[in-house]
């Protein structure tokens, strides 16, 4: 029984609602459209339209700093996503599939929610201070890609665990019980039953983690070192120095990558019931 059958009427919206919805969309997208428009504007200075040109995109390809930053961004996102997906999935399965006492569930759930509800600047400061304390106590720790990866993994684990956990919770027990009844051992049932069934959840969790890593600025800003500039950090730095038009091109590319990721994420999170 689907919800659509229970509520057959599609209500017509009040004109005020439609206006607010339309205005909000303009509000959300107009600045991004302006950046995209400027990225194909030939003008070097100012915003006056001087004709269509892709020269700023071409210029990016020869900018070693940008290419290195793009590489750093991808390494950071890929490595942190890989680690956090494994850890987050383990956490979700370990929590969801064992008869833990209620107090323990409650504590672990609260801990998992901490990175979700703390302001990211506090999280970033905490990470920086912990790294700094380790450095002062033992020496040798330098801020760079490694510290950024550790920081990113720490907040990604929670999001992966929440996504995978909700998938596990909707599965119910019957299939796994059936596997047991047919004499599958723990490992076999996990590998051939549970993991394939929660695979969409794991993929969605991984894509969310990847998006979060790309989306992050504040945590990277605090935990990065001079040699580990990522694209958001590079853009922020050039805003301080004064903007050149290739920033528009770079921003547009990052935006388009994000759009692709979101559309991919939507495909995997769409639950089977809705299809």
């Amino acid at each position, binding site marked *: 029984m689907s919800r659509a059958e229970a509520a057959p009427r599609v209500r017509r919206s009040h004109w005020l609602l439609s206006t607010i919805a339309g205005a909000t969309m303009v509000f*959300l997208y107009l600045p991004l459209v302006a950046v995209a428009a400027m990225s194909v504007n030939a003008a070097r200075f100012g915003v006056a339209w001087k004709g269509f040109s892709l020269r700023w995109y071409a210029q990016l390809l020869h900018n070693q700093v940008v290419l290195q930053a793009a590489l750093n961004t991808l390494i950071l996102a890929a490595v942190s996503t890989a680690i956090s997906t494994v850890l987050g999935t383990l956490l979700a399965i370990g929590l969801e599939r064992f008869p833990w006492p209620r107090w323990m569930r409650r504590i672990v759930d609260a801990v998992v929610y901490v990175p979700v*509800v703390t*302001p990211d600047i506090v999280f970033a400061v905490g990470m920086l201070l912990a790294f700094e304390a380790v450095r002062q106590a033992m020496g040798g720790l330098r801020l760079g890609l490694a510290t950024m990866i550790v920081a990113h993994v720490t907040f990604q684990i929670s999001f992966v665990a929440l996504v995978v956990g909700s998938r596990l919770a909707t599965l119910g027990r019957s299939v796994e019980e059936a596997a047991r009844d047919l004499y599958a051992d723990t490992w076999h049932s996990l590998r051939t039953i549970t993991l394939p069934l929660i695979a969409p959840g794991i993929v969605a969790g991984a894509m969310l983690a990847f998006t979060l890593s790309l989306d992050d600025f504040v945590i990277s800003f605090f935990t990065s070192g001079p040699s580990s500039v990522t694209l958001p950090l590079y853009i922020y730095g050039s805003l301080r120095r004064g903007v050149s038009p290739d920033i528009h091109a770079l921003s547009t590319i990052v935006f388009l990558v994000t759009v692709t990721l979101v559309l991919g994420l939507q495909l995997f999170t769409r639950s089977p019931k809705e299809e």
Partner: protein
Amino acid sequence: MNRLLVWYGELATTRKLTTRGLALLAVPLIWIVVLLVAPLGAMVAWSVASRAATGDIEWTFSLQNFGRLAGYDAFGWTKSYLVILGTTLVISTITTVITLALAYPLSFFIAQRRPARRYLWLTLIIIPFCTNLVIRTYAWMLLLGNQMPPALLAQWLHLIGPSEALYPSTLAVYIGMVSNSLPFAVLPLYTNVEKLDWAIVEASRDLYSRPMRTFFHGILPQTLPGLVTAIVLTFIPAMGAFLIPDLLGGGKSWMLGNLIQHQFGVSRDFPFGAAVSLVLTFLTMVGLLILRRSGDEVTFL
């Protein structure tokens, strides 16, 4: 205590299950606990330390960093840091109110579409939400620049001086903050509104109640859990904002985030930065507790 039980169709003992479960949980739990508890501990430790005149850190216990935030320093009392604290609370509160005022009707609008259309609308909301904040904030800097239509209009109306831009200004900070938090608010509200029981609304209409009364007694109570989540997800990130006031606001709209960043950047005063971060954590936790009392569990996604 070792009990025998049937768990997912398997005859097992609690000890066996606990061992197996802990084997799965060990690595992620150790990671999370070490890397969440250690930073918190580090923050507390740094916040009670102090910076010597030489710039070195002195690990002696003192509460002077918190005193400084409250305005007491070597020269008596100043209100400068308290003003920043106040600005942060005011900007976050107003941002939350404006955001909810836009997100609430928007979530009703989306819930009234056909299912396929709803999906499109939600995707449209999520895309800016996943775009990097630096890019979104820069996009506003570009759009509010002095040669762009919004600024030209304001110049023509003599709201700002000739050839001035619309940023840095408090208005620009609000624009940036609201556009940043809108998706955070729409998503939980929509999930709530979608499940709304319209029979209650119809019953209220059948009993001749006026639209306002129907809203306050039939609709608003049903959307309370979504509203609480939306407030949490708007207010807490707003309290910690740093990039938006940094790029779009002037010195007048410094928020706690800017103060913190300043301590780790220009001032290199880690102990004071840690103290301000702790206070920010404390404030958001208090807010979270109050809201949790009044609403449902915080749900995300």
